């Protein structure tokens, strides 16, 4: 063994460990590698043969479902430790630790209003009634008999993030109530046709089979456009946290309307004006009026690497990457600024670019070691440009609470530390 090799390898190991540490800390998880001694680390490096090649690994069947590597145990949902209660609460996706556009099912963000029910699919029913020719009841087997379809769409909580300080430290703290999956189910339009809509049908009240019996009203146009009754996510059945065995999917609409554990669709002429759509998910303006039925999530983006809580350990090349999305359709382009917003350049947009789905963007970048502020700005196919927080606050005020789609800049200090530039 040569000391030279050990020495030259060490910075790379340190870099990786620091990135893992920052990711683990951001996720509130275990700091990896901190306890490992230098000797133990180098034993598995060239020219030595690593330990994991010297004996057979775990046998087939040791993990019938499968789980991430134990070295990734810090990559978990970001759940606040200071909530008043955890029955009506949310948990965030660790966006800064993920690649691509698909969120793994175990890391998909959660928001529940009455806990996560355990539902026997054999005893679950969907009732469709109200302004229809034939009120119907479906079993899960019934719903799976309909022609199926699969589509990739994001879901985002309407309050992601709020408008007031303290602002979060990491990408997950800021916009982690956002995830994206391939959803499989049946077009709601097909199911509605089966019951026959009456001409006066204008809204559908969707209700969950959870302890909140959460209800939201959906305009009939959306129900007939691209709404889905979903039973599978990323190839497997929905997780309980995502509405097992059945949820509504309304691409581009705020998360809580995509009712989970869906048990009832009530076709009506008027909205329900339920508690969730009057006292909760309404947007309060400075003059005391509040916007109601504000469904769409507008165009938005965030840089996930480098991002808050991470550290650049070397000058020179770094890829800037992040995600962009719009409830109004496809992302047309993403612009990135590396000079505190003075100039903007188009990022490379990774295919596929799908409607109402996360879109991955990248920008090659040479960091000169000087302090910098980096940020991204999404433009969607309607031509809408993601605004700054100042622009939003000027129109909406601090008590608007929901639908904050502001540009979020990251500050990089001379020592490489990345922090929230607006905090």
């Amino acid at each position, binding site marked *: 063994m040569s000391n030279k090799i050990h020495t030259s390898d060490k910075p790379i190991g340190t870099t990786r460990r620091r990135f893992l540490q920052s990711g683990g800390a951001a996720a509130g998880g275990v700091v990896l590698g901190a306890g490992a001694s230098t000797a133990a680390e180098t034993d598995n490096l060239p020219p030595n043969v690593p330990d994991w090649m010297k004996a057979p690994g775990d046998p087939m069947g040791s993990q019938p479902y499968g789980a991430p590597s134990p070295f990734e145990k810090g990559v978990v949902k970001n759940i606040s430790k200071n909530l008043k209660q955890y029955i009506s609460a949310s948990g965030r996706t660790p966006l800064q630790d993920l690649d691509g556009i698909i969120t793994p099912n175990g890391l998909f963000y959660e928001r529940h209003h*009455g806990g996560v029910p355990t539902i026997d699919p054999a005893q679950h029913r969907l009732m469709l009634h109200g302004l229809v020719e034939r*009120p119907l009841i*479906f079993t899960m087997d019934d719903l799976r008999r309909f022609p199926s379809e699969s589509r990739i769409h994001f879901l985002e909580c309407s309050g992601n993030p709020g408008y007031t300080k303290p602002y979060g430290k990491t990408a997950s703290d800021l916009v982690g109530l956002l995830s994206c999956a391939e959803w499989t189910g049946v077009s709601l339009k097909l199911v509605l046709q*089966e019951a026959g809509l009456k001409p006066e049908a204008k809204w559908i009240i969707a209700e969950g089979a959870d*302890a909140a019996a959460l209800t939201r009203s959906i305009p009939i146009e959306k129900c007939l456009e691209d709404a889905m009754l979903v039973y599978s996510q990323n190839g497997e059945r929905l997780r309980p946290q995502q509405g097992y065995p059945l949820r509504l999917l309304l691409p581009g609409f705020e998360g809580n309307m995509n009712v989970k554990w869906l048990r009832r669709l009530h076709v009506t002429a008027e909205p329900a004006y339920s508690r969730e759509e009057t006292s909760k998910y309404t947007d309060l303006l400075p003059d005391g009026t*509040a*916007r109601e039925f504000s469904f769409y999530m507008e165009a938005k983006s965030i840089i996930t690497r480098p991002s808050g809580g991470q550290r650049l350990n070397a000058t020179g090349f770094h890829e800037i990457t992040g995600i962009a999305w719009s409830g109004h359709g496809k992302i047309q382009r993403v612009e990135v600024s590396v000079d505190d917003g003075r100039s903007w350049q188009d990022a490379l947009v990774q295919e596929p670019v799908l409607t109402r789905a996360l879109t991955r963007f990248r920008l090659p970048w040479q960091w000169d070691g000087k302090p910098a502020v980096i940020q991204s700005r999404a433009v969607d196919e309607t031509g809408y440009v993601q605004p700054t927080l100042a622009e939003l606050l000027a129109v*909406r005020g601090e*008590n608007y609470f929901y639908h904050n789609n502001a540009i979020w800049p990251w500050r990089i200090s001379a020592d490489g530390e990345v922090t929230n530039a607006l905090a």
Partner: protein
Amino acid sequence: MRWREICGVVLVFLIWASSAQAQSTYGIGRQATAAEIAGWNIDVGRDGSNLPAGRGSVSQGRDIFAQQCASCHGEKGEGAIGDRLVGGQGTIGTPRPIRTVGSYWPYAPTLFDYIRRAMPQNAPQSLSNEDVYAVSAYILSLNGLVRDDATLDAKSLAAIKMPNRDKFVGDARPDVKR
């Protein structure tokens, strides 16, 4: 005669077949009965439609609230683990709005709808309709919206005009344009 009969039968069959086609493409699912729908449809309209029979008084509601609600919402609805339910009138258009049933909720029947379906959080749908009327009456009385000796039923609950009712507007986004 015979031909006319045959033609008539064929015509009736064609009409039945075409209407069945128009009615149901896949023939999946079964008819929901009126009793099944009545058991599950707990949606109450903002105008009080579908509110059930029954009534409850403020004084009954005070007792039920103390037993079922106060541990989360406070003895007088001042809020704790659960939302604040009382006060805040006049704050909504200020820099520090306090959103409660009394200051923010636009429709009183929504209170019945929400309590019945979701409260108390540890045992939703356990209160009787009378209990829900009573708790609704108590919360409204704490907000000064009904008298302390009031008893509410479907008609009187729907007749209450909430102070913030006319303050809701449509979605004006996109509201930042370049």
